[in-house]
């Protein structure tokens, strides 16, 4: 009788994941044909109440994108978890925290300060700040409060599968949805993408030299790169070796280094430190000062290696100690 029910929901994300779904193009019509989309705020006027009305586990699949950073979002994903047989963390933010997760290097107050007090275009002499609760000419207005820490989806609810990528590559989405519809799913907790690093599908792999040795790392804007040669071998920080394939190495195709949005392969638990280990190992220097010099050519190790995975990292966020870059 009924087609499988699918819900799409977004938390703290940019909407790129929705766009990616829309980019299924004609594919989207197939999907619409194959399933009932029961909830998709960005495109369809369905209500929370509709979802609440459903029985637990009535939704076959919920695709949730975005990181979790407010009580409102937490409430929603808990509800979807209850109503859904399967929950898939969709995209880098739900999977690993994503770029908004970089906020975990700072405190909530830092964030407010830079928006409302430190911005050169904001002459805010009264030091006004958005309030969780505020009374405007007699009316009480409320805002949800932001959490101190940005969290991945599986740090809030149990997640069955993960679809990586910022945004997830269309073909990966197709395959994953296909697998769900045909019930051909791997063991719970798997990432629904090939478990091999990007180099495997990179056109430049053959150009890798026998010995990769790096005296100093190059920054993409300060050096002309050879469009045929392996970027890492040229000294650019291309995270391809550390990153799951599946995107078709589009960034490298665009002649820019991979920044790792697809996340690590199955056996790697902390993306950033693993990447760090791999690249540090390739430094050719041996003397302390030379090593320091070579390492210093990585301008921003934390932001580079944890670009998408800070909240999912072992340390999750900056600790209780004063953070660099924090005024």
């Amino acid at each position, binding site marked *: 009788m009924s087609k499988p029910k699918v819900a799409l929901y977004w938390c703290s994300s940019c909407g790129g994941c929705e766009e990616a779904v829309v980019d299924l193009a004609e594919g989207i019509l197939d999907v619409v044909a194959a399933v009932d989309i029961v909830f998709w705020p960005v495109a369809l006027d369905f209500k929370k109440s509709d979802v609440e009305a459903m029985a637990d586990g009535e939704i076959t699949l919920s695709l949730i994108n975005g990181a979790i950073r407010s009580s409102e979002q937490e409430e929603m994903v808990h509800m979807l978890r209850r109503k859904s047989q399967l929950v898939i963390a969709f995209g880098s933010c739900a999977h690993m925290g994503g770029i908004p997760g970089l906020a975990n290097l700072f405190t909530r107050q830092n964030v407010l300060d830079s928006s409302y007090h430190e911005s050169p275009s904001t002459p805010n002499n009264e030091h006004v700040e958005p309030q969780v609760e505020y009374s405007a000419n007699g009316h009480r207005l409320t805002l949800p409060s932001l959490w101190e820490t940005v969290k991945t989806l599986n740090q809030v609810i149990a997640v069955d599968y993960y679809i990586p990528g910022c945004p997830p590559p269309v073909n990966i989405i197709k395959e994953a949805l296909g697998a769900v519809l045909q019930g051909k799913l791997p063991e719970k907790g798997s990432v629904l993408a090939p478990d091999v690093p990007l180099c495997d599908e990179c056109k430049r792999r053959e150009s890798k*030299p026998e010995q990769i040795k790096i005296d100093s790392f190059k920054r993409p804007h300060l050096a002309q790169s050879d469009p045929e040669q392996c970027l890492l071998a040229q000294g650019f920080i291309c995270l391809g070796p550390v990153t799951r394939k599946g995107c078709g190495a589009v960034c490298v195709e665009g002649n820019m280094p991979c920044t790792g949005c697809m996340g690590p392969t199955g056996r790697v638990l902390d993306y950033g430190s693993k990447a760090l280990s791999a690249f540090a*190992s390739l430094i050719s220097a041996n003397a302390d000062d030379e090593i320091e010099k070579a390492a210093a050519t990585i301008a921003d190790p934390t932001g580079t290696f944890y670009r998408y995975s800070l909240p999912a990292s072992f340390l999750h966020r900056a600790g209780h100690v004063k953070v660099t870059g924090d005024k």
Partner: protein
Amino acid sequence: MAKVTIKIDSQPIEVEENSYVLDAARTLGIDIPTLCHYPYVTPYAACRICSVEARDSKGWSKVVTACNYPVWDGLEICTNNTRVLGARRINLEMLMSRSAPHPVLQRLADQLGIKEPRWGFGDNTCILCGLCVRVCDEVVGAHALTFSERGIFRKVSTPYDQEADDCILCGACAKVCPTGHIVFEDVEQRNVIHKEFGLGPNAAIAVPFRQSIPNIPKIDTAQCIHFTTGGCQVCSKACPKDCINFDDVEKSEEIDVGAIILATGFKPFDATRMKRYGYGRYPNVITSVECEMMNNASGPTGGKVLLQNGEVPRAIGVVHCVGSRDAATNRYCSRVCCMYSLKLAHLVKERTSAEVYNFYIDMRTPGKGYEEFYERLMEEHVHFIRGRVAEISDWALDPSEEGKLTIRVEDTMIGAVRRIPVDMVILSVGLEAQADADEVRRMFNISCGKEGWFLERHPKLAPVSTFTDGVFLAGACQGPKDIPDSVAQAGAAAAEALALVDCGYVLIEPNTAGVDADQCSGCRTCSAICPYSAITILSDTLLAQVNEALCKGCGTCVAACPSGALQQKHFTDEQIMQEIKGVLNYV
């Protein structure tokens, strides 16, 4: 070359044409005295003492000089008839008339029955035989000597009687001079003892040191005349087996071996570091090693214990723990000094019957028969003074110390400072690791302690093994050790080495790395960093593969592998993660 037959004193002999009579006679063992003959220079017939009578079958005869008279077929020589002896007498008497009385000439005179030289003696020991000139020209090739003047003024001299720039101070002239007219003054401080320890001159070609392996002579090119002037080569002329090879050079060879035993030994403590003991300043302060050489019957002093002036010491001090048990030098006990000091004390007493004083901190005499030997020395009235020697000086406070070395020491037995005058001091130097121990250990990839002694794999369980498979230790390179211990350890090391070589295969570490091809992307991070090139990138799949025979199991590649495709057996990520959990589980 054509041969001719001659007779000497009616003994026939076949010799090469144009060779000289003297040589033929010597081959027959017939003695013809000479003063100016030297095998390596052309005959010169200057002294004419080698006069003989030459005859032919037809009755012709003549007195000739054997050293430079060429043979011819049918020649007959008589070396001892009255005519020959007469000629020799006259020639000798003429030489004596010029020369001052000299043992060499005197011996000849006695043989020829000369009672009184008819024309008396002269005052010049040079007999103008010209050997020195010829050696300097023909052998050394320095041309620093020549004859000058004429007639009775004729003499050997350097150019213009000045110091000759061409002279290389080789001393060859002095060596060949039959009458000792040329004297080479020994400018060395100490005229005794062996070169091995920098004590006095030595032949340019010699066996490096006694019991050296291989026990064959070696040319010291710095001293060799041939390497200075291109001449000489006397040694090769002298060598009946043509063993001398001047073209030989130092070269290193590579040898493949299955096991290596390090037995690089120790180096004796450098006594000059103990300024207050005056080693190097006072000739008669010597080290235990030098003393050992002295006692060696085949040593430079033929086993005599002598002061540098050649006299026999009357009192000798033996100072223990020089460079051992001393915060300023080495804290450790060198372990062998006590016993060898006792031995030396015993030997020098035996050889010189001098008074012998041993200055010690503690007597350490463990081991079979050692303590008994100590007691025996006390019975031999060797003095034992317990206390570290403060200083040794030649500064005499009273006549009894005049011209002696005074040892100042606190005798802790009687609790008083004593001054003990002696003639000779023997410093019992400690054992130190070789200066290049650090390079050697790096070469073999093993470790050593702060003092530079090589580190055994385990003090009890693997005392001759090192951290590198197939490299073993023997002897003092591992730490101060006496001969019996060294020999025992060497035996153990040899056995270990043989066991390893003999079984024909090697066991490799089980904890090698391996690639899971399903997760490898061929990024080449691992192959770039493997120190053993154990990781290759397969040409077909472009994926990494570990050669387990080459892999030593360090796991560096595993830590670097960006995909976790590489894992190390027994040290997988998961195992270590579990260990971390485990160690953090208890509070």
